[in-house]
């Protein structure tokens, strides 16, 4: 209710001044009030303002017209006419279409020139910011003389270019490093982090912050009454140390060196954009604007045409699309009308159940957490409390908010109140008989509109729902561990699932801040089905005497967040050795696990299940890896793990682990487990962290070429065994255009 959204809000008490229309275009409307020129950005036919050729040109035009009248004007105020949204940046579609360096330079030059013109404008310029200002929007406000912001929670100011594999290209590097102290500027440019109004004020990025309800008037008053002094801009320093680090040659060298080291660690050589941005800032420091602009243009153009940037932009579009999709045949209007999930239950207060309950309560749902005893439920609520406490210590939540969210978790051991539920998610033991019994109970206690979901990862839905009275209400909601961190949830549907229920489940996943991926029922759904071949291959590689830690490192170099042995330990060797035979049974010998996996997981001396038992391929201490348990593994398996016999590394090693996934992806696509290659990529990036810069599994396969992959699979099949045999599906995909993406 803090938006002044009543029609008779008393804004008229302000002195009413006559506005004269001065200019009306497709993007800009300019009015003159006394001596103040008010430029409203209002891009025709769009919900948000963004920069493209036309809007930049029109701004140029507006500047010319204003300059011609500068004698009668005192200042220029730039605002957005879009409610609670400033400028979201350059049109990303335009960037995606830049294919040559020349085109990139042209795009860079145009923005650089217009924004420099804003900077050099003979009258004081003020940007009034309410709502998000991203990328090119922020580069624009940096070129104004003054900035005032609304304290609306929607106001955020950032330069997220690096997230799309590029750098600010319209003078943002030059102007940001000049306006705020160096460590802050680097943080903003290199990590793409955005600041809210309060933080922007503290950083000196904006000059004043006004309350949301008064913003329009206050911004006008500021532009009208403020005595403007234009001259050298010096950043506001938060501490003497930061002043030293920004101003002093040695201080700066330290900052640059430290930052470079951090970047090397975080980008692992895969993401050049932040590295380039840092190089730009370091090389241009102290130089003229023209020199900054020259190098910026060069670097921007280099980056904009890289495959990495194209991949990152594609992923950005993919995730934006998911936000809009209903996940079923329903239109977005119909999708908005399906009954929302407000009150739900989670059965099983273990790690997964508690994680799901936490995530749902954190987003304001009422969650019943049920287990066999209150002590089990209490542990689950404790898990949630710890996560809420963490949010409080990180200042993401206030104490009051955290307490309120925790109160949304209701403990229980019976089925009381289940009649009023919209959704029940089962997250109990992976045992078909137990699950069937529990769902039979559930069917008798819930209301008819309640969706029943299973968080199973290894059982097929059709098996669980065999005896259901109403199969239409049953879906899979496959969360990944740890639930609070992993962004993906597979929404698994069967032939009996009507579109309304698919969409209800999809809407629920979105409402708790996760990315839904609709998949069809089948062994391992999408993500596990593609991941299992990768995990199983690790067993065969071990049998060839590999140095396991080295293999993990190589796979991480490829860009995977974890190597296979570390991942096996995280997932649990008991789980993997339990599900592999199930997969093999339904999918054939390419899912046959190696003997060594069973030998390791079946260690008779101690529970060697991975991280959770403190011992797997690695020794684990306090949840951290403490080296490969080499001697014991060798004793268990009778293998030598010195790595002297296994010399495969780099791309060849990665191919051996990734190509089987690609082989399976072709089958999955033919079986229509997911709708498209894009969805496979979405699943692999958000489900297992497949390297985004490679664009996803299918995109990566396409970049190599399916024909080439088939040849390599055939070769490996001959050397290592028939599990590598190219699938017919892959052959058909190769014959049908040679790529997954059409």
């Amino acid at each position: 209710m803090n938006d002044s959204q009543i029609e008779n809000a008393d804004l008229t008490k302000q002195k009413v001044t006559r506005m004269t229309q001065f200019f009306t275009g497709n993007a800009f409307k300019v009015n003159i009030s006394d001596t103040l020129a008010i430029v409203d950005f209002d891009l025709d036919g769009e919900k948000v303002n963004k920069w493209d050729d036309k809007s930049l040109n029109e701004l140029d035009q507006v500047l010319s017209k204003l300059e011609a009248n500068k004698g009668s004007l005192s200042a220029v105020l730039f605002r957005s006419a879009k409610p609670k949204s400033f400028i979201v940046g350059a049109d990303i579609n335009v960037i995606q279409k830049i294919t040559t360096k020349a085109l990139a330079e042209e795009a860079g030059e145009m923005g650089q020139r217009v924004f420099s013109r804003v900077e050099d404008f003979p009258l004081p310029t003020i940007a009034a910011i309410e709502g998000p200002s991203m990328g090119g929007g922020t580069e624009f406000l940096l070129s104004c003389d003054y900035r005032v912001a609304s304290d609306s929670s929607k106001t955020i100011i950032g330069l997220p270019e690096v997230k799309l594999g590029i750098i600010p290209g319209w003078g943002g590097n030059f102007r940001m490093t000049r306006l705020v102290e160096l460590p802050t500027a680097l943080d903003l440019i290199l990590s793409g982090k955005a600041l809210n109004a309060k933080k922007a004020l503290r950083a000196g990025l904006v000059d004043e912050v006004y309350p949301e309800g008064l913003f329009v008037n206050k911004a006008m008053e500021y532009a009208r009454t403020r005595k403007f002094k234009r001259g050298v801009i010096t950043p506001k320093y938060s501490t003497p140390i930061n002043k030293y680090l920004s101003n002093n040659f040695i201080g700066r060298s330290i900052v640059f060196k430290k930052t470079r080291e951090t970047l090397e660690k975080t980008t692992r050589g895969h993401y050049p954009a932040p590295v380039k941005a840092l190089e730009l800032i370091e090389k241009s420091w102290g130089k003229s604007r023209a020199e900054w602009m020259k190098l910026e243009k060069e670097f921007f153009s280099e980056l904009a045409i890289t495959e990495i940037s194209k991949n990152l932009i594609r992923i950005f579009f993919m995730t934006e699309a998911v936000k809009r999709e209903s996940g079923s045949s329903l239109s977005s209007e119909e999708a908005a009308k399906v009954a929302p999930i407000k009150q739900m239950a989670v059965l099983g207060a273990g790690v997964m159940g508690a994680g799901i309950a936490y995530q749902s309560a954190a987003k304001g749902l009422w969650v019943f957490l049920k287990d066999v005893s209150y002590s089990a439920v209490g542990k689950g609520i404790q898990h949630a409390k710890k996560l809420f406490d963490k949010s409080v210590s990180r200042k993401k939540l206030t104490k009051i908010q955290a307490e309120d969210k925790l109160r949304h978790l209701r403990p229980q051991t019976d089925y009381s109140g289940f009649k009023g539920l919209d959704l029940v998610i089962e997250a109990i033991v992976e045992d078909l008989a137990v699950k069937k019994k529990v769902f039979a109970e559930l069917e008798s206690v819930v209301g008819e509109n309640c969706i029943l979901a299973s968080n199973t990862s290894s059982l097929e839905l059709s098996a669980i729902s065999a005896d259901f009275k109403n199969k239409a209400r049953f879906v899979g909601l496959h969360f990944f561990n740890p639930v609070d961190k992993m962004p993906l949830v597979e929404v698994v549907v069967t032939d009996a699932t009507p579109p309304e229920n698919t969409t209800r489940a999809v809407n629920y996943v979105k409402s708790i801040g996760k990315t839904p991926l609709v998949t069809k029922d089948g062994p391992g759904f999408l993500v596990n089905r593609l991941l299992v071949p990768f995990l199983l291959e690790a067993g065969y590689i071990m049998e060839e005497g590999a140095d396991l830690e080295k293999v993990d490192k190589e796979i991480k170099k490829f860009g995977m967040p974890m190597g296979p042995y570390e991942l096996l330990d995280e997932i649990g060797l008991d789980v993997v050795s339990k599900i592999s035979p199930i997969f093999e049974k339904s999918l054939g010998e390419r899912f046959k696990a190696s003997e060594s996996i069973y030998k390791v997981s079946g260690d008779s001396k101690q529970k060697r299940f991975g991280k959770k038992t403190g011992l797997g391929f690695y020794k684990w201490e306090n949840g951290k890896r403490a080296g490969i348990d080499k001697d014991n593994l060798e004793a268990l398996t009778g293998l030598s793990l010195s790595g002297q016999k296994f010399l495969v590394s780099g791309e060849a090693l990665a191919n051996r682990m990734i190509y089987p996934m690609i082989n399976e992806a072709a089958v999955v696509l033919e079986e229509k487990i997911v709708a498209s290659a894009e969805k496979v990529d979405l699943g692999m990036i958000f489900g297992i962290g497949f390297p985004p810069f490679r664009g996803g599994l299918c995109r990566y396969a396409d970049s190599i070429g399916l024909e080439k992959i088939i040849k390599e699979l055939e070769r490996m099949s001959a050397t290592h065994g028939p599990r590598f045999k190219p699938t017919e599906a892959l052959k058909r995909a190769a014959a049908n255009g040679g790529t997954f993406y059409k």
Partner: protein
Amino acid sequence: MTSNTPSRPAYIVTGIRTPFVKSGTQFAKVHAAELGRVALSEMLIRTGIPLSEWGALVDEVIIGNTGNPADTANIARVIALRAGLDQRVSAYSVHRNCASALESISQAALKIWYGESDIMIAGGAESMSGMPLIYNNKANKFFETMNKARSLGDKAKAFSHIPVQDFLKPRIALMEGLTDPMCGVNMGQTAEVLAKEFQISRLTQDEFALSSHLKVAKAQVENFFKDEIAPVVLPHDPETVVENDIGPRANQTMEALQKLKPFFDKKHGSITAGNSSPITDGAAMVLVCSEDGLKKLGLSPQAMIRGYAFAGCDPLRMGLGPVFSTHKLLQKTGEKLSDFDVVELNEAFAAQVLACQMAMDSEKFCQQHFNTSKIGSLNSEILNPNGGAIALGHPVGVTGTRIALTATRELKRRNKKKALVTLCIGGGQGGSMSLEAV
């Protein structure tokens, strides 16, 4: 109201309470509002009607509370919002000392009788552990001077007179709340007055106390309380979930009770911690509806509220309150004491309950006070059949709801018709309510 039955009946539909927990133990760090929140949201959820739908249904939430926690000025509002009721639902707190929660049910009933409301929530929430220590007057004076001191010198001067000894002598809100400001006597001492005037022996009191514990223990074995108790997760330590009442002792013995020293009159007294109700934390809620309300909710009623009465008496003999209010109630409803199949008379003190029994059955007492013949004999068989506050405890602002809920459930269990619910009220009052199973 003089008519025998209200023309627009009000029904108790369902109810729930938290465990009653001896103060200073498991609930020591749990706020009264949190106890109330758990009871209310559990009651709503267990009906099977989603929380989100209640906002459009509930007319008002009335919560009894006597501790008035400083951080929740209108605790009913806090409880209602935290329980998941939406902003539009009105909520207010009531304070009638020991009968605050009976007052909340009475107001709910009255608003239904009058035709103003259809769906009401009445309850109580109390943390007697949470009652504060208050700086004494001299310490307060120091803070006042400090606040007024403007210059550094003034402040230094004020500081030089820190009344250390006064900080160490706080006023105890709980103790002051349990002391009658009219006669300057503690509640326990009013019970001593009755014990002496009615010549109730220590032995009789202790026997009564023992039977209270044993009746509670029996009810626990029979799982009688299970359906009325909602477990409470300690918000600061969720791994601790309190599922049962803490206070009743199944292994209570006469020997143990007899060993205790009189607490209020060490020399000639007979009131001990063992035959008094302990200081306790807890909350309880009931849903009160009109017939229209029942239709809207699709729920069936448990008991009709036939009438209620509150009456004053001598503050020094506040324990006799039930005699006065029951007399008034019976006059209003036209019922006789012998009509009731179950009576819940709150056990503030064993002596006080026994005194009420004697007074009701005394021609002399009733002639003197009411100018009528005696109210009648209160059969011990039907009095507090599942035990009472001596075992379960007496969270002051909650007990009224608990005994109304227990009486309703006991009527159902026994398949009987009428229940009388009554309690004595610190300050010299009594409250009574007549319920009829439907």
